[in-house]
């Protein structure tokens, strides 16, 4: 009976989504209740599953045969090993809190039913990734997650920016998925399996070589897209156009870490190639620093948090690249709690200030929203890795893993410095000083449904560092704490607060102006200017997609090629039947000529 429980946990949110979409659409209150109930049941199920079963055992739900095609066999099976169980509990738990919070956040929106249906669909897709026992199944849910996030980011589809952001997110993810599917096919052909259960044993028998490297990098591409790592990171900050609970759920706690989760699943393949692992570690390392720098000059409260998310995920990616999955999972968990908390707090601020997102138009909120102020501090301390709060423990383990890689240690610790800097900047500007806008003057705390989830999350942020992740995943809890990294990283992180306090305490406008950081290193502009010049931006999906394909794969100037191809086609497809005939005849002659020639040659 318990063996089938993953199916139940997985399908409940789907039922909720379908049911709402088909029957409950006109009744937002019932829809809300249905969605939350489904999520609650899933969460309870996940907790039961978490509690049962052995810590090390690979428990799998009985598979259902799914596809058997030209030698490619895939079962629709679910895996419930400790990793999946932990992740499932995390996803459903955070989703439950976010859904409860959303009740308050979208209380006045007329299309609440659609919102909850889409949230449920998202939870279903995400659980699918978690429980997938092979790469193809995972890929399908991977795409579903892409689709549901597309829907959720574009929830307010009458805002053009939301539509554009949704498109951008979807398109960039497709580029990553392209690499991912290549990686899947490669895995299958190299090791003859796409099941996670067989992968370690097959991979250990496999030989290293360029093919393995290519496959590993292909799989990593999937992670680049979904976890928004360089150079595919551009979608995540834009996706903040969606409702804040969505940002919180998708872009902090669950969807973006799917890439990390996937990397951990395919680690046996990645580990075969030193090049792959080094690439992953370094992309992770650099991505800890880059967004942290950008965040120092952002003014939109959600974008600041979004960039910090990029940085934190990069820590996990780096950890995977260093081969330490325990700390990666550990940080994934703690990050889910404190980042979700920070996002919900920012949502509370935005809600309280009447849809104001610019921190320079806030101010003085520490008196009007003391609870939000408090939980923001808790989240910040956790994020910056100040002991004894959760983030410290998980970050410390990652820093410890870098102790033999001075370069990585340097960039990631520097990132810690800037993280402290921009977080304190955000708090000082948004909460300190005097109100700088009408919205901020009339700010108020949200209703209890919004407060309670934040309370729960702050408790989790404070104490989740105690959860024995390593032990649960079957690894030994090693004592790294004697390492030099502990002290250095802590010192650097604390040092980040000093200049922030110096610069931003009580100011009304930004004393610093660094255009390169404000312009996010001009990466978006780079894409925009060099690769889709002349295109109609992202407004028209077709055009944009052409551009994106170009950007992703055919490096540069291919926009020109695509347009030239269009022009060439226009010349051929001119409506003159005789031109068609000429093309036909030329093709036929070429074909027959080639055939005859190859016939004579042999």
């Amino acid at each position, binding site marked *: 009976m318990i063996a089938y429980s993953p199916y139940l946990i997985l399908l409940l949110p789907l039922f909720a989504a379908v049911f709402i979409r088909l029957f409950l659409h006109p009744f937002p209150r019932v829809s809300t209740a249905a969605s939350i109930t489904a999520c609650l049941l899933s969460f309870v199920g996940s907790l039961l599953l978490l509690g049962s079963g052995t810590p090390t055992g690979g428990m799998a739900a009985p598979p259902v045969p799914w596809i058997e095609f030209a030698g490619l066999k895939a079962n629709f099976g679910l895996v419930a090993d400790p990793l999946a169980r932990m992740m499932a509990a995390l996803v459903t738990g955070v989703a439950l809190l976010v859904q409860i919070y959303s009740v308050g956040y979208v209380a006045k929106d007329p299309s609440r039913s659609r919102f909850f249906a889409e949230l449920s669909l998202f939870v279903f897709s995400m659980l699918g990734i978690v429980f997938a026992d092979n790469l193809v199944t995972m890929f399908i849910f991977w795409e579903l997650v892409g689709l549901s996030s597309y829907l959720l980011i574009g929830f307010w589809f009458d805002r053009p920016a939301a539509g554009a952001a949704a498109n951008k997110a979807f398109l960039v993810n497709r580029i990553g998925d392209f690499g991912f599917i290549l990686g899947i096919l490669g895995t299958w052909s190299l090791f003859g399996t796409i099941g996670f259960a067989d992968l370690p044993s097959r991979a250990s028998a496999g030989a290293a070589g360029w093919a393995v490297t290519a496959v590993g990098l292909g799989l990593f591409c999937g992670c680049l897209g979904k976890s928004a790592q360089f150079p595919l990171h551009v979608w995540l900050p834009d996706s903040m156009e969606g409702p804040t609970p969505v940002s919180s759920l998708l872009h902090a706690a669950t969807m973006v870490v799917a890439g990390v989760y996937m990397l951990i699943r395919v680690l046996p393949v990645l580990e075969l190639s030193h090049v792959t692992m080094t690439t992953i570690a370094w992309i992770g390392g650099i991505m800890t620093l880059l967004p942290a720098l950008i965040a120092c000059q952002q003014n939109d409260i959600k974008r600041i948090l979004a960039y910090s998310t990029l940085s934190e995920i990069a820590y996990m990616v780096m950890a995977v690249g260093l081969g330490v999955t325990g700390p990666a999972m550990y940080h994934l968990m703690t990050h889910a709690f404190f980042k979700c908390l920070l996002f919900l707090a920012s949502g509370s601020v935005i809600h309280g200030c009447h849809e104001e997102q610019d921190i320079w138009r806030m101010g003085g909120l520490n008196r009007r929203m003391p609870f939000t102020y408090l939980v923001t501090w808790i989240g910040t301390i956790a994020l910056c890795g100040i002991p004894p709060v959760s983030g410290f423990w998980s970050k410390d383990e990652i820093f410890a893993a870098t102790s033999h890689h001075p370069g990585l240690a340097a960039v990631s610790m520097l990132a810690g410095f800037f993280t402290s800097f921009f977080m304190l900047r955000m708090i000082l500007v948004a909460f300190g000083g005097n109100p700088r806008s009408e919205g901020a003057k009339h700010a108020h705390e949200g209703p209890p449904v919004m407060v309670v989830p934040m309370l729960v999350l702050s408790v989790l942020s404070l104490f989740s560092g105690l959860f024995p992740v390593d032990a649960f995943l079957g690894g030994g809890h090693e004592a790294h704490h004697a390492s030099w990294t502990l002290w250095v990283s802590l010192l650097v992180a604390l040092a980040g607060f000093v200049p922030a306090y110096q610069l931003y305490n009580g100011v009304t406008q930004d004393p610093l102006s660094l255009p390169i950081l404000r312009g996010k290193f001009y990466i978006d502009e780079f894409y925009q200017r060099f690769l889709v010049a002349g295109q109609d931006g992202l407004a028209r999906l077709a055009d944009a997609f052409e551009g994106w394909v170009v950007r992703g794969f055919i490096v540069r100037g291919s926009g020109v090629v695509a347009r030239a191809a269009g022009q060439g086609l*226009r010349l051929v497809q*001119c*409506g*003159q*039947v*005789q031109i068609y*005939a000429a093309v036909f*005849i030329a093709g036929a002659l070429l074909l027959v000529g080639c055939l005859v020639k190859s016939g004579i040659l042999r």
Partner: protein
Amino acid sequence: MILGEITLGHYLALSGFLFVIGLAGVLLRRSLLIVMMSLELLLNAANLALVAVGRFQGLPDTQVAVFFVITVAAAEVALGLAILVAIFRVKKTTAVDSMANLRF
């Protein structure tokens, strides 16, 4: 070879030249009527090859094939001319250039 006995090769070459002339007609003429006559030339070239092959290889089937080709050609011409008449009623011309409104 050229002035010796007439071989299958001669007939096939003749049919090939006829085919090429037909292709040139399809490509070069602006009147749809002549284009259709050129299509007839293509089929005739193929017919010639069929009959010649049948005779030199001793295959009666090729002549049956020619029979079918002639039928098909007749039907094609009839229908093509009917479409041309209908076009002429609308556009008062049968020039190929007038038929370029559907395009990229």
